[in-house]
């Protein structure tokens, strides 16, 4: 059972269902989607949140082994891990999901209007309706029965009051006699993913939230920016709906505040504020002045620092290092004045048209209540209590945790944790895998359309306002309806939403469509969805064609609406021209070798190996050095005080003792061939080579510590790296015990022009070492010189504890770095205090440098072997999608974990290692994988046997049949890239779905 239908719960459900478990996805509200559904865009890619989430929601909704239980709360949990009895209370929906088609007739007649909670109260809606337009399940509900006229007055008086919704519904879907239900479910494991509550800023009187009309929370601002929000994405301020010229963001509202007991950092607000400011600027017709008031800019995630730099240097967002005391009325109506002290100590007064409060993340109140009922312990801030080494385990065995109820976290971390929690649950229930599945729905019998005249149906998407505000979508629709073979055309607000899928299926039936064209966004994310929709309606999925009128049109021709509309017509006409010539294509299946290869024997790799082995898969674990352990062998304790050495010993012995894991140390990879389900990797160990066959690969080859030349490192033995200092501390060396002054310098080699990224862990590592020094030697003066303290989440507590123990923190700018010198044998550090503007020198006994975490040396080689990208920020591996696929590669069957993905803490490496195992399990669980479709085929009659294609194929998918003297394409390996087609001198090779005649038709349509 997964409790909570946000992105974490959705991901955990999908991973488990794909790995052979039946999943109940329990959601408190009437639809899944969680917070992510309410966001406009997501950082650092600025992807439309709904656009990337919607396919996952739809997948969840249509998965045969996921049962979504809405309006339900978990109230009791009896029994043991593997055999729980869960009690749920489900509130009445008053609408029958089997009958409702979400047509809106009931809502049109309903007389009761309420504040729209999904739109943060910025709009009103009817009491009966969807939680949001793209809701899954797409069934209406009466959201506030206490306000329904019939359910209150009618029931009280026994009279037929109102009931307009019942009269309006043609489907007989409304059931006002629906009652609350209590029921039990037998389950093996529980994953909690209940999410967070937004901090309620009205309690901070000085910001005047609720008093000043143009002070909004960040989540309200997301709705203002959103195309599906109250202002259709038009950036206006609430008081008078005029466009603001100046907007300010105030950070740390409800975070990092001892006064109100929210000492922790909410981890996500710095980056989301940057995102909101960037998007606001994009949405603004006139130049918008944006300022973000912050204390420490915490852009610690993958790609975030580059995003921050872009915000500063390219988009011109102003960053002001100052915490804000209060908001005051400005000189014009409903504007706001901010009085602040900049870091130079100068007091400034600035007026803004609108102020956004970057509210923090609070533990969900309902989750706190649930935790109490099922016996899950909470930490002092009421988030679920976990440890560094068990990041997804709660205090109750068999109950796992992921997402923001574990600690404030961003979407990729939530997704990673969700997969890790799925791995944990999967490991617990390995024996029961496949036993509770619903028989897969019989595939719809495919319609035979061979020889039929093409009947094309066209669906043109507004994508909220992403397309619709630039391209005249109705005009495009009307135009394409006139084209040959088009028998049906319509426009949609979101063509990808669940209700539209039903519409498309309906249209295929009603209009006897045998070709479907969607003109919307990118096939990269959405083609599988529409193909599946076609297949469900009985149409061969390859009879579908996509036109991209967003990326190729509305986004790039934002300023010229007329030309954009014309181009959209042409793009759609192009797709139609091709669709007319499409053939049905069929997939092939291949068997799966149910064993895994894990490359890298560090913490991430070992966790991945152990999870896979416990789930019953054979694992080969390769380690290039002589011993398992990786970087963690040099780490002795965590910031939170846990003993890494003993954890590592335990992990190594568990791995080596596991009969399903074969460990290769001193191993070198010589070659790798194959594809998902069927890889062969050649390994050399001690001069001998061995071939390992496996179905999936986890790349967890770690990272390195930078050897810097800055700050006299290498010239003076008293200057050492953070790990070297940790070694001295762990030894309890006299150097540490007798030191009077120890200085630590952060950001050494990170956040520099030639190495842009933040190494994420160094701030906390310096704090950790500082605290340990104070423990060993309380009288030592410890100085930490930093640029922004990035102790996110609960790590802020330790930053605070270090200050509390007297550790002195001094900030420096990159233009005025500290200077380490040897002054006649004395080691000195020169630094300027930014507040007093005074220069100081510190006589230091030791200097610890928080050096950058480097990518692994051999990432490029490994990347080439497994056909993945290993050149991100100097050699980190690049996952399939930064937001929603953090451990997958674009190449199927290859997964990613640990430092090789980017700098991270031990608990994050553990979670990611386990997440990679969960993702690999979704492959290894299956007996057969499906390939083929839009791939290349060789016409043996035409093939001259020149072998050009064999050497050019980037996926090693073409073999040469010596006997027949022709080339042959392996349909599972082929990605349909077309290289061979272009190269073939005899025109013997054709890419299915991209045949010459089809492409010529497209070109002609463009030129017409």
């Amino acid at each position, binding site marked *: 059972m997964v409790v909570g239908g946000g992105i974490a719960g959705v991901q955990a459900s999908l991973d488990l269902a794909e790995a052979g478990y039946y999943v109940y996805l329990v959601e408190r509200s009437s639809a899944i989607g969680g917070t992510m559904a309410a966001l406009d865009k997501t950082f650092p890619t600025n992807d439309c949140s709904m656009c990337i989430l919607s396919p996952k929601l739809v997948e969840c909704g249509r998965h045969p082994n996921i049962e979504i239980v809405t309006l339900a709360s978990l109230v009791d949990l009896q029994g043991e891990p593997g055999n729980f009895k869960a009690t749920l209370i489900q509130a009445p929906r008053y609408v029958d999901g089997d009958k409702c088609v979400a047509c809106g007739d009931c809502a049109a007649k309903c007389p009761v209007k309420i504040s729209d909670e999904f739109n943060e109260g910025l709009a009103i809606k009817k009491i009966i309706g969807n939680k949001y337009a793209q809701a899954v399940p797409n069934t209406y509900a009466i959201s506030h029965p206490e306000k329904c006229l019939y359910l209150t007055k009618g029931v009280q008086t026994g009279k037929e009051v109102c009931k307009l919704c019942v009269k309006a519904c043609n489907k007989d879907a409304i059931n006002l006699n629906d009652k609350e239900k209590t029921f039990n479910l037998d389950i093996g494991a529980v994953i909690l993913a209940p999410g967070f509550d937004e901090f309620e800023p009205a309690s901070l009187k000085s910001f005047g939230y609720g008093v000043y009309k143009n002070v909004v929370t960040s989540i309200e601002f997301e709705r203002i920016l959103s195309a599906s929000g109250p202002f259709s994405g038009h950036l206006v301020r609430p008081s008078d709906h005029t466009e603001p010229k100046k907007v300010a963001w105030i950070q740390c509202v409800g975070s990092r505040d001892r006064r109100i007991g929210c000492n922790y950092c909410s981890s996500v607000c710095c980056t989301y504020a940057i995102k909101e400011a960037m998007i606001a600027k994009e949405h603004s017709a006139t130049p918008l002045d944006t300022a973000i008031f912050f204390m420490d800019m915490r852009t610690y995630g993958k790609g975030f620092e580059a995003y921050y730099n872009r915000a500063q240097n390219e988009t011109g967002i102003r960053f002001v290092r*100052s915490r804000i005391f209060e908001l005051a009325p400005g000189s014009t109506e409903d504007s706001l004045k901010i009085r602040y002290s900049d870091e130079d100590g100068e007091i400034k007064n600035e007026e803004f048209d609108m102020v956004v409060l970057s509210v923090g993340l609070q533990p969900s109140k309902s989750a706190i209540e649930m935790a109490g009922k099922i016996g899950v312990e909470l930490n002092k801030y009421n988030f679920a209590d976990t440890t560094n080494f068990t990041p997804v385990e709660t205090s109750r065995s068999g109950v796992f945790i992921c997402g923001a109820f574990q600690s404030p976290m961003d979407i990729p971390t939530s997704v990673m944790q969700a997969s890790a929690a799925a791995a944990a649950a999967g490991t617990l229930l390995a024996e029961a895998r496949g036993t509770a599945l619903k028989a897969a729905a019989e595939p719809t019998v495919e319609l035979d359309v061979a020889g039929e005249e093409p009947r094309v149906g066209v669906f043109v998407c507004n994508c909220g306002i992403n397309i619709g505000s630039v391209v005249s979508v109705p005009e495009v629709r009307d135009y394409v309806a006139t084209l040959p073979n088009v028998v049906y055309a319509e426009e949609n607000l979101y063509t990808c939403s669940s209700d539209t899928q039903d519409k498309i299926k309906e249209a295929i039936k009603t209009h006897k469509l045998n070709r479907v064209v969607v003109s919307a966004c990118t096939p990269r994310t959405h083609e599988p969805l529409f193909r599946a929709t076609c297949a469900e309606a009985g149409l061969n999925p390859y009879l579908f064609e996509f036109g991209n009128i967003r990326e190729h049109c509305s986004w790039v021709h934002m300023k010229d609406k007329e030309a954009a509309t014309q181009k959209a017509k042409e793009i759609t006409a192009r797709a139609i021209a091709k669709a007319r010539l499409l053939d049905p294509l069929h997939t092939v299946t291949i068997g799966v070798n149910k064993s895994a290869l894990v490359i890298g024997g560090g913490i991430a790799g070992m966790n991945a190996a152990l999870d896979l082995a416990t789930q019953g898969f054979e694992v080969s674990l390769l380690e290039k050095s002589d011993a398992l352990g990786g970087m963690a062998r040099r780490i002795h304790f965590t910031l939170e005080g846990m003993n890494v050495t003993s954890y590592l010993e335990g992990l190594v012995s568990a791995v080596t003792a596991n009969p399903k894991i074969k460990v290769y140390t001193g191993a070198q990879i010589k070659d790798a061939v194959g594809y998902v389900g069927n890889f062969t990797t050649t390994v050399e160990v001690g001069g001998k080579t061995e071939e390992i066959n496996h179905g999936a690969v986890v790349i967890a080859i770690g990272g390195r510590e930078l050897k810097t030349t800055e700050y006299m490192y290498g010239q003076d033995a008293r200057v050492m790296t953070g790990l070297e200092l940790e070694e001295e501390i762990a030894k309890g060396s006299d150097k540490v015990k007798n030191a009077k002054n120890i200085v630590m310098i952060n950001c050494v080699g990170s956040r520099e022009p030639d190495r842009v990224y933040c190494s994420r862990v160094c701030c906390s590592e310096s704090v950790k070492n500082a605290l340990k020094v104070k423990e060993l030697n309380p009288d030592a003066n410890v100085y930490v010189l930093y640029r922004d303290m990035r102790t996110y989440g609960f790590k802020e507590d330790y930053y605070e504890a270090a200050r509390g123990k007297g550790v002195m923190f001094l900030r420096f700018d990159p233009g005025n770095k500290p200077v380490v010198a040897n002054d006649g044998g004395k080691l000195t550090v020169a630094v300027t205090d930014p507040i007093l503007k005074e220069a100081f*020198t510190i*006589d230091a006994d030791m200097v610890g440098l928080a050096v950058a975490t480097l990518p692994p040396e051999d990432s490029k080689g490994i990347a080439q072997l497994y056909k993945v990208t290993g050149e991100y920020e100097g050699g980190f591996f690049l996952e399939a999608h930064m937001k929603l696929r953090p451990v997958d590669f674009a190449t199927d069957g290859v997964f990613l974990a640990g430092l090789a993905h980017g700098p991270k803490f031990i608990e994050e490496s553990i979670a990611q290692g386990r997440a990679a195992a969960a993702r690999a399990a979704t492959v290894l669980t299956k007996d057969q994988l499906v390939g083929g479709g839009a791939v290349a085929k060789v016409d043996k009659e035409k093939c001259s046997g020149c072998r050009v294609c064999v050497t050019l194929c980037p996926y090693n998918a073409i073999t040469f049949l010596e006997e027949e003297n022709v080339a042959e394409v392996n349909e599972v390996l082929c990605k349909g890239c077309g290289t061979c087609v272009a190269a073939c001198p005899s025109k013997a090779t054709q890419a299915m779905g991209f045949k010459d005649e089809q492409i010529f038709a497209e070109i002609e349509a463009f030129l017409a």
Partner: protein
Amino acid sequence: MEAKKLNEVRDPKFRDEIVEKMCFHDDKAKFNLNYCLSCGTCAAGCYFTDLVENHDPRKFMRKIALGLKDEVLNDPFVWLCNMCGRCTMNCPGNIPLANVVRTVRGQFGLTAPGHLQKVAETHMETGNQMAVTEEDFLDTIDWMQEELQEEFGDPNFTIPVNVEGAEILFIAHPREIKYYPEDIKSWTKVMVNAKESWTLCPTAFDVTNFGLFNGRDDEARKIMDFTINEAKRLGVKRIVMTECGHGYWAYKWGQKVWYKEGECPFTFEHFVEYMADLIKTGKIKVDKSKNPQTVTIHDPCNTVRKGGLIEEGRYILENVAENFVDMWPNREYNICCGGGGGALPMGDWVKEARMKKGKLKADQMMATGAEICCAPCHNCYDQLNDINKEYKLGMKIKHLHHLVANALIWEEGTGPKTEE
């Protein structure tokens, strides 16, 4: 300028020393000065940061954080700060800056500039800060009693003095005895109209306590003892005090920090909360048409921000005046008048700064368009009068009891007879 050697100029224990010496009524662990993030909230919260040299609370805290003890002890901020507490209202580190300043003033061997220390010493020597003798006190009370007898047409009217077993001991400001005896009549009328059981005491009548300003807790306790000892002797239950801000806070806070539990078994009521309660409970009845002018109120830091008497003054004015207008910012977010923290007795040294600060208050007052500005605090009252003069505001500065006394509705046969 050559860089200072931090190892030589820094006293790393200084921060902890301040906390150790700090007088608290709360858990000390909550107030760790090391939690300061130098975030700048305080610098923006204080309206004087950019108005007066050496007035940046963040810089002051930063010097403390760095352990620059000598610089801190010689920092003019120590005495320029009015200890109004606004800066750290929203402090994320929960730093009690006003109390830090008080501790540095009093616990590190510093002597207050101007007359501040002298006033405290006079109080300790004579039982009141103006050395008013018992005889002078009684003479003044007799004089006012006579005037009231005439006003009431009641030759037997007495102002109660030294009445053992009275419910309330009323304590005044010695200025009222010495310079503003009309005030005695004003608050006496309120007490009489409410038919309260009360008394004055010639050996314990001073509400003030400059031990709050000079930071010396031993002196503060000695000063407070005069009242406490006499209150015990008289057997009163409640101590009601005239409109004095710092005195009120000294008693309220002092009860917790300078006395052990049970040593000081009285309730302390500022005249504003006391009068608001009289109106609320119907013990006095008032007629707001007696005060037809436009009236505003200044919120004294000690009663409002620290003492929490936020709505009481407004409640009174809404009942006793026809046109009440608020100034902005107000309530706990008020701006200090500029005279707080003992600035007035510090004399010429702070005069210029005091008047610069007062300009903000002058602007606030003028923006209301009021004819009268009430200040339920003697310190503020003086400062507002100085402001009034300096910036030629032409406003009347009053205490609240002036307006209440004027609005009292008397039962038939009681009260002033002059109108008939």
